[in-house]
């Protein structure tokens, strides 16, 4: 199969109006190595949206299409995470013990929040909470 990499002209999007505003969240796809054409489209769309006044999109890394998809894991009703996130957040914790010792509502509140922010092994808790000058 061949891929055409014809030049793509810049798309001019209309400026957002003051009325009838709706929340729009745009995500840029990064690390996509499968298609030059798609990367061009993505870059032009992102640039045009930015010029039109939309906020900068959150950068989201996307796995290569050859990588197997993560299977979702249900930690508690309504709390679903991927296997990698499960490993980081719950891998070092005896969840079954806490599931038995906590009420369902408390267990859900507990697992919903623990480890929700990615950290690093060198994070110093004493330092991170210090009020800056």
């Amino acid at each position, binding site marked *: 199969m061949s891929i055409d990499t014809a030049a793509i002209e810049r798309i001019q999007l209309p400026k957002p109006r003051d009325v009838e505003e709706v929340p729009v969240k745009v995500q840029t796809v990064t690390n996509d190595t499968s298609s030059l054409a798609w990367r061009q489209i993505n870059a032009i769309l992102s640039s045009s949206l930015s010029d039109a006044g939309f906020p900068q999109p959150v950068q989201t890394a996307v796995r290569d299409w050859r990588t197997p998809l993560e299977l979702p894991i249900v930690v508690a009703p309504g709390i679903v995470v991927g296997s990698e996130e499960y490993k980081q957040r719950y891998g070092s*914790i005896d969840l079954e013990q806490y599931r038995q010792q906590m009420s369902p509502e408390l267990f859900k509140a507990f697992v919903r929040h623990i480890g929700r922010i990615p950290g690093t092994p060198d994070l110093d808790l004493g330092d991170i909470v210090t009020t800056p000058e």
Partner: protein
Amino acid sequence: MTIDSPAYLDANVLVGVIVNTHRLYPKCTQLTANLLISKSSVLISPVSLHECLWATAKLAYCQLTNNPASAHWSKPIYLRWCEKIFQSYEGWITAVGSMMKDWSNAGVPIEVVPKTQALWAHVVDLAPDYMQQLKLSPADALHLAFAQTHARTFITADSDFEVVRANPPAGELVILHVAV
């Protein structure tokens, strides 16, 4: 582990529970789970929330700029990055507050200190003493004063409180230091 109620939580433990991968994460979550299971009253102060907000804002800044958590951080940096921090990581900034609300809704007795004007007056008197005697920062002296006047257990991950072991304040306060 038995935790005497009520227990005052230092900001570093609250942050230590919502941030994963760091060295104290398993112990922070284990201690917090024990606290919740024991149905202990949980005490927090505006100082704790203040520190948690700074911590999560810094973590968001480090994520945005691909810096390590030890990167230089200041109010001018925060002001420059404030908009982007909230644009991309507002959920991080509100994480501790959201966790407190969910715990409370699940039946955990959570109280904010100081509870009374008389206890606040006591805290105001104690904090400078702790700064002088124990060489604690103002925020740490306030944490200890809040715990001393309101709690039976003070849970912290800050190694600065190691000095308190050698010179403990009068009373029955138990200090649980989360360490590796």
